[in-house]
């Protein structure tokens, strides 16, 4: 059951990170076209909007993979001095705390997106609805929260992931 869930979670995390990478490539392209266009007196209209909104996808798209690869910065100076049981407990609590943080972010952003829909908020030039990107951010946050919850469950299981285990990127 857990192994099956892990496969699907990794696929979802991989897809989310690919969208993030795509966002980065879009940014490079938009800036290049804008700079070249500007030198010919025709800058790309709305480039600022595209850059800002693709940044949202880029940052939150990669969050789940960042956690999967243990990319979050932690002070692990005392890890070897802690008993194994404490390290395991810390790993479970940290994963759960992370899941709660991302669930809160998703909840707060969904609330904000509802407001954006109500007020018809959009980007300055291209008039892209702000809510689209807020829904996207909330979706990526939910994926991250679910990934972290799954990791906490894996830690709890006998023979589950240990602090020293390095995970492979999906």
């Amino acid at each position: 059951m857990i192994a099956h869930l892990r496969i699907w979670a990794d696929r979802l995390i991989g897809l989310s990170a690919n969208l993030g990478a795509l966002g980065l490539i879009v940014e490079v392209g938009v800036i290049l076209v804008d700079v070249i266009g500007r030198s010919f007196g025709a800058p790309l209209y709305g480039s600022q909007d595209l850059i800002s909104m693709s940044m949202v996808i880029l940052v939150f798209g990669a969050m789940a993979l960042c956690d999967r690869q243990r990319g979050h910065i932690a002070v692990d100076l005392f890890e070897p001095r802690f008993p194994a049981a404490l390290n395991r407990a810390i790993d479970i609590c940290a994963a759960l705390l992370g899941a709660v943080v991302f669930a809160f972010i998703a909840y707060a952003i969904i609330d904000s997106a509802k407001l954006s829909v109500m007020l018809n908020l959009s980007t300055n030039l291209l008039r892209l609805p702000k809510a689209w990107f807020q829904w996207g951010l909330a979706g990526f946050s939910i994926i991250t929260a679910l990934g972290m919850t799954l990791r906490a469950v894996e830690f709890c299981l006998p023979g589950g992931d240990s602090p020293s285990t390095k995970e492979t990127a999906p």
Partner: protein
Amino acid sequence: MSAEALGFTGIVALLILLVLRVPVAFAMFLVGFLGIWALNGWNGAMGLLSSETFTLASSSELVVVPLFILMGNVASTTGMSRQLYNAAYAVIGHIRGGLASATLLGCGGFAALSGSSVASALTMGKVSLSEMDRYGYDPRLSTGVVAAGGTLGILIPPSTGFVIFAILTEQSIGRLFLAGVFPGLLLLAIFVITVSIICWFRPEAGPPGLRRSLSEKLTALTGALPILLVIASTIGGIYGGLFSPVEAAGVGAAFVIIYGIVTRSLSLPAFWQAARASVVTTATVMLILIAAHMVNPFLALSHVPTYVGEALIALDIPVLGTLVLMLLVYLVLGCFLEGFAMLVLTLPIFFPVVLQMGIDPIWFGVLVVLTLEMGLISPPVGINVFIVKSVAPKVALADIFRGVLPFWLAMLVTLGILIAFPQISLLLPNTMFN
């Protein structure tokens, strides 16, 4: 409980969570959110969480972070770093300690392509350590040089350290980039002098390499031309007022990608891998930054920075003494905390004091980033040392730390010079922005 007491309780709780190995971002979110909830109510905390998250995630200024990281990752994948090293090696490799100095020059060059110290140490370590080993270099010198040289990545622009400092303190990224140029070059020169001094006293530590013919030198230098072109167009573009930092980062990233495609040194899977690695690094940085924007208002609401500022002023020590005191705190914290985390944790407290005392914020930024660099090679955490250890598994960690020591002292000397002569940091930004 008073607001101040709540603020200090929050700081203690944060430190306990960090010691317990809770990721920095999550610990900051927890403390910041609970603190604002206590001081400003649930709606205030939730409102701040949603507004700060979306505002920072869609910040067009912060776009430089993923773009410069991508530029460094692609440059590393396409072998641009090796060409830089080869060029420096061809010119000065034949003198005593020349390979070590060539490594430092390569690190300096790569630092102008990448904003990351870890990337610089890893890339140049892979390229240069085997070569220095082949010529019988003392492993302490060779590994020390790579670990120390890597730190140039966050001082020589583009630097993620400066970008984060600028965002947290609302300073100009362009000014900070300019301010890092001379200090970066000064540090590079002092590193090279350090190598010469080591080899003067212990000639066996850095025997000379093969002398290259003129044509070999020219070939190696020609190989480094594309990199120099990228550096000139991006960094030069910012200084010349041609590009904003964001545009320079985008154009630079596009240049290295195009270079990789044209020279066939960048396959599609390798490019995709570099892009994914870049967004993951960005996510790490951005999450801490968003979390820092939860902690900062909490500290401001609890009046902790004001309290610290008043306490420092009450000590009645001169401004320079206060500055040195703050830098000492950074040096000590650098032994235990990751540099970026240290920046976001301390700036909300220190920066208002810096402004209150009339210390130039740009100068302060340069000094802080240099002390962060020192933390990268300070025991016991010293991330660059661990990076070098991963590339040179046969060299004992204690030997790498011993090898790094002369360079750490060289950085201390540089810090002293930069404190004594603020003009070194401020000349370029003041000249070009005024």
